[in-house]
């Protein structure tokens, strides 16, 4: 299992657009990817579940990635978060 921690810097927080992009980034991987915010947890491949976290700027997200392609997924998602959130 891999774990990534990331503090949101986007002033709008994880609003609909970055949430949608995260889904797209997570979708190709076989691994189970879970996003945990102080407000709850959601499957990174499910848009509305992610949006329901209402994660804001300054909140810390923890991504847990578990599965055959977890190494690659972790590297890609780390890069995705830094670039988009």
């Amino acid at each position, binding site marked *: 299992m891999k774990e990534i921690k990331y503090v949101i810097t986007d002033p709008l*927080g994880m609003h609909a657009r970055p949430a949608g992009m995260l*889904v797209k980034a997570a979708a190709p991987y076989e691994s189970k990817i879970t996003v945990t915010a102080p407000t709850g947890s959601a499957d990174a491949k*499910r848009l509305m579940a992610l949006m329901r976290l209402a994660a804001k700027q300054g909140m810390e997200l923890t991504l847990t990635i578990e599965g055959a392609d977890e190494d690659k997924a972790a590297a890609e998602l780390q890069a995705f978060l830094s670039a988009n959130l």
Partner: protein
Amino acid sequence: MKKGIGLPVFPGVAIGPAVVYRKAQRTLPVSSGDPAVEKAKFEAALETARQQLTALFEKAKVEIGEEQAAIVEVQLLMLDDLDYLDGVNMAIEGGAAAAIAALDTGEEFAQVFAAMDDEYMNARSADIRDMSHRLYDILCGNTGFQLPEGSFLLVAEDLAPSETIQLPRERIMAFITRQGSSSSHTAILARTLNIPSLVQSDIPFEAAEGCKVLAVDGFTGTWYADPDEQTLAMLKVKQAEAAAARDALEAYRGKESITRSGKKVLLVANIGCPEDAVDALKADAEGVGLMRSEFLYLGRDSLPTEEELFDAYRKVAETMAHRPVVIRTLDIGADKQVSYLGLEAEENPALGLRGLRICLTREEIFRPQLRAIYRASAYGNLHIMFPMVASVWELKAAKALCAKVRKELEEEGIPTKDVPIGVMVETPAAAVLAHELAKEAAFFSVGTNDLTQYTLAVDRQNAKLGQFYDPYHPALLALLAHIAKAAKDNGIWAGICGELGADPKMQEKFIEMGFTELSMAAGRILESRKLVCQSNV
């Protein structure tokens, strides 16, 4: 002529033919009875919706801009949401027709978002409904709304985001909706497109459909069906004036407020509550020069809690982001009374226990406000300003309390930032002592209304004294020049936050004196910037 009212969301006048937008009648689909068939229908509808939204996305990006295009993009993403698809498939397996499954599942999700404690996410429920209605329409074989030729005023019950995007914006002269709010998609679009519009109007569809000419006055929030000659003439004059004035002002949006000789001025807004901050930004304010913090104390039975205050200040700080926000601490007493503070009635409240005087004598009132401001300081660029200062010791005492509060918060592990502390100069004593105060203050902002009343000994509540209440009085101007000089000599900035701040007869004079910040009603920002930019001082 028939007329009625609505909530104006953009000023201006539009006159023309009316078109009533009614959602097309749908035939209620019946399930084939075979879940496999319904699932296949749903898959096909998804594909059609994807194509429609993709085309719409491209159109929006080119014609309307990123903000509206992003709304469509979100709906495109929602179409593929696994939770939504699971919900639809479950409903179909339970015997529902594809169209009903798409609609009902969308409604379930929309309600979840509408109930969230997050304004942004609440608004997303409209996107979910819009997306599921699209699938429903496709599954019902709905061909959609046919628009007539030429320009028109659009009357509707309400307009969904994708409906407003599909409309040919160059032909729409105004929106009039019976529902909606000033932050609804229709209102946002009206402001984006600069067209006068009303929401929550009382217009009956029959009146709009039966008239030859419909007119909207976005200044007064009035609609007229078949206006008579006199009304029409009045509206046409307003229309021409508004068009000319607006065109001229829009050129100043996003510009620096700087005079021809290079003097830079900050044009900022006066606000009362977090919602006003949003409007201030829309009006292109460069910050908030005066947040009247009384609004949370008035019209209630008990003191607001530190949490309530913190929430309000944090919202303002976040809305304005890096822009400066000056919060004036509680200025109650005089003409603003609240019963729960247990203040005694006074013979002469304007000279009584008010402003900082209450705060210094009633720490239990002052401390929660200061704690709330310091807690919120971590979220933006906050400043504190004390009202009704007359002596240097008052400022020192209040500053000491600020330092104490900040230290306490730090010990509690709560993040704070440096908060510049300034004086609202509104007593003649403070104006005369400006040089001494400037050594203790980070900035001055002159409350011209009270400074005028106290300097001239004229009660501004007394209408009979009108001719004696002269804000251009030479005594007042001398004090203002003195304040600006004291600020300059001590390396701090000075601003104006009374009604005079927006006075076009005074603005150049203020800049000349050395004031570098003018605070006013948000709607006056652009016209003031025009004046500043054209000024030679």
